[in-house]
């Protein structure tokens, strides 16, 4: 292949197709990143040139091809914008947005980071992962180096050289000799050669959260096969053991991400983001307060499976990444006997019956009491009262705590409060009641339902109760 080869560095000012190449910004094992200009775009550029020399040629080529295939298919604020790709057989390069911000790696110099900050950054990273998963892609190489935090706090994922995309061939399939990904962050299933499970990214997110919260890696930097396989069966030291500031909630979230078996982890990165943002709603298990690795019997069982049973990669079920949506139902806790309540409950039950992976978020909006009338104490009492009403409203659904969370919003404008809450929490579907038929049509224009339907970022299911005909013998007034 007549590509630019061994040791050839691009010189500053060199022109390649439409672009001018400037100083190198980063020299990595897989390739070199240069600052680049050209095409007059409203954002800075960088050019990524793979290293096609030495023994890693095949791997850098695969990574380059993979990224050149997947990056152009990705959109949104959580990935760098793709600009151009050079012909692999001539001058292989990728030109993409040079994302301005801080690498998460640089923030780790200050680890342990205080839990509220871990939660804030972690939720931003989880949002970015969720955005990727919604596009049918799995990153497969999440680590602090590959996360950039923009000045506005949003996270951007970079380096898709090991990524997997449902609509493209996986060039790393069956290439076991490349342990694609970075060892400390690899999920157990990736170690066994399974690619394309979004829950692998959730495991890596757990490693990142653990590292932010404690300054340590949960499974260290293993350099042996046995060390690498430890995570197939073992629990890491609980974060609070290493860093007492870690709250039970944060520990619960981190250890749930780090479960050796994917089905015990969070089902969606959006759920992780939700829990990080709503700590009061996180149901705590024994993970939360554990001060040493979990149950001995459980770990021994996993160890046995990992050592004695022949090691087989679990069959990858091609799960729909969207299979674990968050459904939000708006409940009017002020008018508990409203005839629409049973209909909304039934609609919610129908949705939830579609999959046991759905998560329900119940929200009540309570009008703010007149200024100065109650004070903070009265406000808290109001919340508790409505939370209790929400709890009894959801009781017939019989949902386990892990699939349910309850929220009372105190706000004047119910529609905006619901829309904002839904957007912030990556809700996929809002369920709420329509105004009563009698009140239409003017009532619709002013209703919460119309405001939410018009402005929500997601789908809205409006529940309507049909008007009953008047009982026989009565006449309209």
């Amino acid at each position, binding site marked *: *292949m007549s590509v630019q080869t061994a040791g050839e560095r691009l010189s500053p000012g060199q022109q390649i197709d439409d672009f001018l190449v400037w100083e190198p910004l980063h020299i990595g094992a897989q390739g070199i990143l240069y600052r680049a200009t050209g095409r007059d775009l409203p954002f800075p550029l960088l050019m990524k040139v793979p290293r096609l020399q030495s023994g890693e040629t*095949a791997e850098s*080529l*695969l990574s380059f*091809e993979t990224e*050149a*295939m997947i990056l152009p298919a990705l959109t949104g604020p959580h990935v760098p914008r793709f600009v151009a790709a050079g012909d*692999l*057989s001539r001058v292989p390069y990728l030109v993409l947005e040079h994302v301005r911000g801080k690498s998460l790696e640089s923030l780790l110099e200050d680890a342990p980071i205080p839990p509220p900050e871990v939660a804030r950054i972690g939720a931003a990273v989880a949002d970015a992962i969720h955005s990727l998963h919604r596009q049918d892609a799995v990153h497969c190489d999440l680590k602090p180096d590959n996360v950039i935090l923009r000045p506005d706090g949003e996270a951007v994922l970079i380096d898709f050289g090991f990524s997997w995309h*449902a*609509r*493209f*061939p*996986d*060039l*790393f*399939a*069956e*290439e076991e*000799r490349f342990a694609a990904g970075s060892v400390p962050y690899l999920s157990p299933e990736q170690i066994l050669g399974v690619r394309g499970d979004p829950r692998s990214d959730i495991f890596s997110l757990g490693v990142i959260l653990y590292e932010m919260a404690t300054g340590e890696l949960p499974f260290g930097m293993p350099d042996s096969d046995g060390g690498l396989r430890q995570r197939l069966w073992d629990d890491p030291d609980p974060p609070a053991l290493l860093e007492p500031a870690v709250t039970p909630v944060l520990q619960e979230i981190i250890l749930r991400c780090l479960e050796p078996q994917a089905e015990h982890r969070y089902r969606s990165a959006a759920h992780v983001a939700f829990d990080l943002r709503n700590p009061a709603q996180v149901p705590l298990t024994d993970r939360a307060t554990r001060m040493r690795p979990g149950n001995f019997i459980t770990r021994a069982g996993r160890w046995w499976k990992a050592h004695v049973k022949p090691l087989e990669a679990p069959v990858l079920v091609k799960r729909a990444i969207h299979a674990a949506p968050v459904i939000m139902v708006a409940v009017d806790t002020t008018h508990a006997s409203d005839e629409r309540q049973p209909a909304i409950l039934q609609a919610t039950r129908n949705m939830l019956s579609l999959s046991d992976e759905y998560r329900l978020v119940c929200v009540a909006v309570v009008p703010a009491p007149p200024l100065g009338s109650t004070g903070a104490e009265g406000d808290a009492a109001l919340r508790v009262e409505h939370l209790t009403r929400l709890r009894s409203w959801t009781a017939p659904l019989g949902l386990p705590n892990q699939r349910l969370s309850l929220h009372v919003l105190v706000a004047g404008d119910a529609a905006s409060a619901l829309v904002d809450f839904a957007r912030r929490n990556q809700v996929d579907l809002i369920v709420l009641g329509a105004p009563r038929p009698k009140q239409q049509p003017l009532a619709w224009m002013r209703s919460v339902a119309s405001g939410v339907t018009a402005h929500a970022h997601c789908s809205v299911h409006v529940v309507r109760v049909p008007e009953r005909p008047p009982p026989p013998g009565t006449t309209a007034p």
Partner: protein
Amino acid sequence: MRDSGNILLLALLSDIHANLEALDACLAHARAAGATRHAFLGDLVGYGADPAAVVQIVQRHVGQGAVVVQGNHDAAVARSSGVSSESAQDAIRWTRSVLDPGAIAWLASLPLEVREEQRCFVHASAAAPQRWEYVDTPAAAKKSADAAGVPWTFCGHVHRQTLFFEGPSGRMTSFNPVPGVAVPVRSARRWVAIAGSVGQPRERDPAAAYALFDSDRERITFYRVPYDHLAPARKVRAAGLPELFRWSAWP
């Protein structure tokens, strides 16, 4: 417009099986997508009720520079035997009865394989085209790619759209393409693309299948084209042909 060095968009049409409506639908779709050239990957006839019309259309395209290779049904019609099942044999006899001798001779004259530049066109496996082996496993794809010795092997025979690709260790992997998604197929590795069947897709979806190869940008896009599939079904029934194809089971 034969200019093999400068193909922009090549339509890959295989296993038409004398289904005129499906062929028309795919050709119209390919035209709208900007196809500049066509490759017919064999089994123009057999099963369906319009062999003469299909042969005419393909001959016209060949006159304009299209590629065509022979499929096992084409060979069977030419030799009047050679397909495995009794009902397929009935269809072959019927097809011979409605084709003029010129068309039969033309089918008999088709090459088993065509190579140009970095592309190989064949109905079944390039490893032994005349043996009509199915390329339905990565190992079979590997044999075919090895024999072809070029980056791109385009074939049919298996009525299911599949893209096989070779990893650095030489092993082939199978990929089920998503219709309408352009997949980069760089010449740095070897690919075996099964275009699917125009006239008789075996998936549960009756939409006709074909693919477009962009030689300039090294990309392939697989398509499914819905059309009135009950029209050819009625013709098959009217002609008294064996209904191998479960038209009636389709929605």
